[in-house]
C-alpha cells in the first residue's frame, strides 16, 4: 500500500513542474517518484486532466494508490489492473479487472443541492467551490465506510441475455419465463417475442419456442399483429443460430436477422447457450408486463430501446454534475464525496471541476485521500 498523501504530493509536484497544470492528455508523463516527506494536507486538488473534446475524446486512467495518471491506450487499459478510476468527457469509469474490481459508494454529503422533488437547487450549485465544500470532504472518515456489498462497480448488461428463462436453484431446472416480453427494433420492424417453451439438454438448449408478434411499420402496421409460435431446433447446431422473426426461420449470419443464440458444446452436448443477443444495428427493450400493443415509431426514442449490451456505470447512478444551470451549457459539480474501494484500499474522492483555468471543458480536477481507520 502506498501512502496517498505522498501520491498526491507527487502529482502536485508534477503539476508545479508543468507550470501549474498537468499535461492535458492521456499521454502525460507519470509523476516523479523521488522520496519526499509526506506533509500534504488532506483535500489537495489534483488536475486538471484533459479528456479531449466531444469529437476527439481521450481517456485519463488514474491510479489512486500511486496518485498518478497511467499512460494507457483503451486496449491496454482493458487488460490493466493498476488503474482505479478513469475519465472520458462526462463519464467516470471504474476498473472491472478481475484483480482490481473497483467499487464506488456515494456518501451524498450534499443532498441539499436537490430539493424534495429532486430538482437541482441552482444557487447551491453556482455558489459552491472547492473551498466551500472542503469541510464536507474532510468530514468523511474511515468510519463512513459501509459494508462491502454497498460498493457498486461498473457492469455490462445484455438487454435480453438470460432474462428469458427461470432457473430453479433447488431443482436445477431451467424453464421458459413466458411472462416476460421483449421488443426488438430491427430492419424497420418491431418484433415482440417471449419464450414460451424450451428444452434443455445438459447445459445447452436443444430447442426453443417463441411467441412472436410483428409490427411492420414499412407495411403500414400501426400495432403488433397476433402472436404466433415459432420453434427453432438448436440441437447439434454447427454455428451460431440467427433467427428472423418475420420469416419465422433460422438464417445465416449474413442475412437480416433479429436475434442470435450462440452455439456451444458442453460435456460433448452441442446446442444453444442460454443467452440471446440482437444485432449491432438493432435495439431492444424488455416489455415486462406486455404493456405495449403498439410502438409509435415517431416516439421510439422515449420507450427506452437500448443496444445489445449496455454499460452500467456506478457513477451514473449518482451523477456528479448538473448541466446548464445558468444558460451557459456548463457542468457544475455537486461536490458529492464518493468512496472508491480498490483491491488494496478505500479512498474518498470529490470532483471539483470539469474545466481548466481557461474554461475548457473535459478537464477534471478532483481531490482524493485514502481512508485509514484510527
Amino acid at each position: 500500500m502506498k501512502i496517498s498523501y505522498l501520491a498526491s504530493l507527487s502529482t502536485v509536484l508534477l503539476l508545479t513542474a508543468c507550470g501549474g497544470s498537468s499535461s492535458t492528455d492521456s499521454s502525460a508523463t507519470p509523476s516523479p517518484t523521488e522520496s519526499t516527506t509526506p506533509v500534504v494536507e488532506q483535500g489537495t486538488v489534483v488536475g486538471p486532466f484533459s479528456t479531449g473534446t466531444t469529437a476527439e475524446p481521450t481517456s485519463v486512467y488514474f491510479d489512486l494508490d500511486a496518485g498518478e495518471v497511467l499512460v494507457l491506450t483503451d486496449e491496454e487499459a482493458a487488460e490493466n489492473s493498476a488503474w482505479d478510476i478513469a475519465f472520458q468527457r462526462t463519464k467516470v469509469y471504474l476498473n472491472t479487472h478481475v484483480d482490481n474490481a473497483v467499487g464506488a459508494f456515494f456518501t451524498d454529503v450534499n443532498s441539499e443541492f436537490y430539493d424534495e422533488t429532486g430538482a437541482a437547487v441552482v444557487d447551491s450549485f453556482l455558489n459552491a467551490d472547492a473551498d466551500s465544500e472542503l469541510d464536507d470532504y474532510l468530514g468523511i472518515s474511515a468510519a463512513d465506510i459501509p459494508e462491502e456489498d454497498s460498493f457498486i462497480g461498473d457492469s455490462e448488461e445484455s438487454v435480453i441475455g438470460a432474462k428469458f428463462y427461470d432457473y430453479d436453484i433447488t431443482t436445477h431446472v431451467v424453464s421458459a419465463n413466458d411472462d416476460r416480453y421483449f421488443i426488438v427494433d430491427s430492419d424497420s420492424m418491431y418484433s415482440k417475442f417471449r419464450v414460451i417453451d424450451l428444452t434443455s439438454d445438459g447445459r445447452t438448449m436443444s430447442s426453443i419456442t417463441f411467441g412472436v408478434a410483428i409490427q411492420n411499420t414499412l407495411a403500414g402496421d400501426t400495432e403488433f399483429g397476433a402472436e404466433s409460435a415459432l420453434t427453432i431446433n438448436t440441437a447439434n447446431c454447427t454455428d451460431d443460430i440467427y433467427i428472423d422473426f418475420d420469416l419465422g426461420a433460422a438464417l445465416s449470419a449474413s442475412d437480416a436477422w433479429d436475434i442470435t443464440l450462440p452455439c456451444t458444446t458442453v460435456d460433448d452436448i452441442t446446442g444453444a447457450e442460454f443467452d440471446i443477443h440482437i444485432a449491432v444495428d438493432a435495439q431492444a427493450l424488455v416489455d415486462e408486463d406486455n404493456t405495449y400493443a403498439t410502438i409509435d415509431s415517431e416516439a421510439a426514442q422515449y420507450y427506452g430501446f437500448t443496444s445489445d449490451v449496455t454499460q452500467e456505470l456506478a457513477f451514473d447512478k449518482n451523477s456528479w454534475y448538473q448541466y446548464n444551470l445558468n444558460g451557459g451549457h456548463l457542468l457544475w459539480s455537486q461536490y458529492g464525496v464518493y468512496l472508491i474501494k480498490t483491491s488494496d484500499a478505500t479512498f474518498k474522492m470529490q470532483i471539483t471541476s470539469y474545466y481548466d483555468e481557461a474554461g475548457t471543458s473535459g478537464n477534471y480536477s478532483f481531490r482524493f485521500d485514502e481512508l485509514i481507520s484510527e
Partner: protein
Amino acid sequence: MLNASAYGQSFSGKKNNIDNEPLERMVVTGTRSELAQSRSPISIDVISGVELQQVSHGTLASALNYIPGVVTKRNSKDGYTVQMQGFDGDHVLVLLDSQPLISPTGSSVDLDQISVLNIERIEVLRGAASVLYGSSAMGGVINIITRKQARNSGKFRYQASSYTQNSIDSGDVAGLYQLDLSQMILGWQGSVSAQKIDDPGFDYDENTLAQSAPSTDKTFVNFGLARTFGEINLALKSRYFSDEKTKLRYAIPGQTGDISYLSDVEQWQQDFSLSKEQLWKVQGRYLQHDETSGDSNGLRDAIIKLAELDSQYQWQLKDFSFVSGLVLHRDELYQIKQPVVSSSTGDATSNGTIEIDDKGRNSAEGYTQGSWQVGEHELVAGVRVQHDSDFGWHSATRVNGLFALNKDTHNAWQLRVGAGQSYRVPTLKERFYVFDHSNLGYMVLGNKFLEPETALSANVEMSYQGSVGNLLALGTSTNQQRSPRLSLRANAHYAKAEDFITTVTDAEASAQTGLLISRYENVDQTYIKGVDLSAKLSWAKVDYQLSYSYLHATDDDGAYLSDRPTHQIKSNVNWQLPFDINLLAYVVYEAGEHQNSTQTGIEKDDWLSVNLSVNQHINEQWQWNAGVDNVFDEHQDSTAIASGLLDVRPLASRRLFAGVTYQFY
C-alpha cells in the same frame, strides 16, 4: 416618418416656400425602376439618411425601430434583426443598393453591422417581394440606398453618450466618430467615409458577474468612385467593417477564472455597378465575412462568402413596360469549433471540430415583371424562376394593382392590392450543420434534403394623400391649401406559410445512437394576419405621425407564435423651432407577446420607449445635437429572464447623448 418638407426645413435651415407641400420622393424597391413614391404600385415607406442620423447611434440597430410596423429584436449575438408583418428576421430581406448582404445568424442580417453614415435613404416594402428579390423577401424588404455624392463636401462628427446609471464604470462614455469626404477629381466623384464606434456596454446589476450588454469597438470604412461616360454610369465601391465585442458571462465552475462572450468580425465588400438610366443595369458584389465568436471556452471560426452578379433590363411593348433580370448567386460557409488549447503550454491538444465543411450553393435566377398602365391605374404581374444547385427548380409569381379612386392629386385616394407567392431557400447551416454535444446527450444536424419555405400572401391597402380640409370638404380652396396636410393608410395582410424549417427530433437516428438527435426539417405551417394603420399630419412647423399594427400569428395547431408583439403603436412629433432648432420625440409601445414553450410565466408582456432629441444648425459649418433615448430606462429584468419568464422589454438602457458636427466645405 417625417415628411420631406419637415426635414428639409430642419437641416437646410431654409423654410420651404410651398407650405405643407411635400417633395415627392423617388423609390426603386417596388418595381426595380425609379418612380415617384405615390406612383409605386407597391406601397413603399421611405426614411431619409438625415432622419437616420437623428435617431441612430451610428448603425441601423436602433434606427429601424423608428419605422412604423417594423419590430426590431436583439439576437443571441447581441446583434439586431427586424420583423415585418409577423415574419421574423430570417424572412425579411435586407438589401444594400438592391443586393443582399451576408447573414451571420441564419438568414437575418445584423443591422448593427450597417453604418448609417453614407445612406441616402432606406426604402421599406411591407409584404412579399420574392418575384423581384428572391429568397427571404416574405415579410418585407428593407432596401438601403447609399448616397450618390453630387457635390464636393467634407464633414466630421463626434457624439458622446452615456448609459447613465447602467454604466459599467461611472464615467464610461461611448464615442461615435464620423468622417465623410467627397471630392470630384478628374471627372471621377470620389468619396471616403469612416466611422468608429467605441461603446463600453452597460450592466444592470454590478453585483452579478454577468454583463448585460457587451463592450464593442466597431470600425466602418467606405470608399467610392463614380463616373458618367455619356449615358453610362459606372460606380465602384468598397466597404470594410470590423467589430470586436466582449461580454462577461459566467464564472468557470470550480475554477477562479471567468467565461466571456467574444466576437471578432471582419468584413470586406466589393461592389461594381454599370448602368444606363432607366434602361439597363449590371451590378456585382463580393462579400467575405470572417468571424470568431462564442464563449471564450468554445470559440468558433466562420468564413462566410457571398458573390452575386445581378443584371436587369427594362423594355416596352405597346402599353406594357417590363423589367427583366438575371441573377447569379453563390454562398459559401465554413465553420469550425476551435481546437482545445492546453492552458499550461498554449498548444493545441486536439484538432478543431468542423461543423460546416466548406459548403457552397449556386443559384441562377431569372425574373420578369410586367406593368400595364391604364390611365391612373396600374396592374403589375411578375414571375421568378430559380435553379439552385441543392434543391433544383423553384418559382414564385405575384400580381399587384394600383387603383386611383379619384383624379385629384390634392385629395388622392388610392387602393393597392397584391397577392402571390414568396419563399426562402434553406441556409447552408440548415443544410450542413453538425453540432456535436453527444457527451451531453444531444446533437443538432443539418439536412441536405431541405426544400424552400414558401408562403401565399395577400394584402389590401387603402391610402389617402391630401389635406384635412379636402378630406372634410371644408371652406374655400385657398383654405384647403393652407389646411394641414394629411396622409392616411390602412393595410390588411394575410399569409399562409408552409414548410417552415425548424429542428425536430429524428426518432430513428436517436434510437440508433442513444442520443437526442435534432435535425432541420420542413415541417411548420404558419398563419399570419394583421392590420397596419398609419396617419401623418403636417401643419405649419409640426409633423406628427401615429401608427398602429395588429398581428395574429399562429401555427398549424392554432397556437400563437412567440416572440412577436400583438400590438404595436409608434408615434413621433417633429417640431421646427426658431433659430433653426429641430425637436424630435418618438414613442414605441409594444404589447401582447406570447410565451414560447420553454417559458414558465410572464414577467412583463408590454414595454414603452420614449425618445427625445434636439439639433441646431448654428451656421453653415457647425451644428450640434443632444438627446435622451429610452427616457424611462425601460429594460428587461435579467433575473426574470434567467428564471424562465417572458419579459418582452428590450435589452436596452437609458442613454444620454450629445454631439457636434463640423462641415469643412
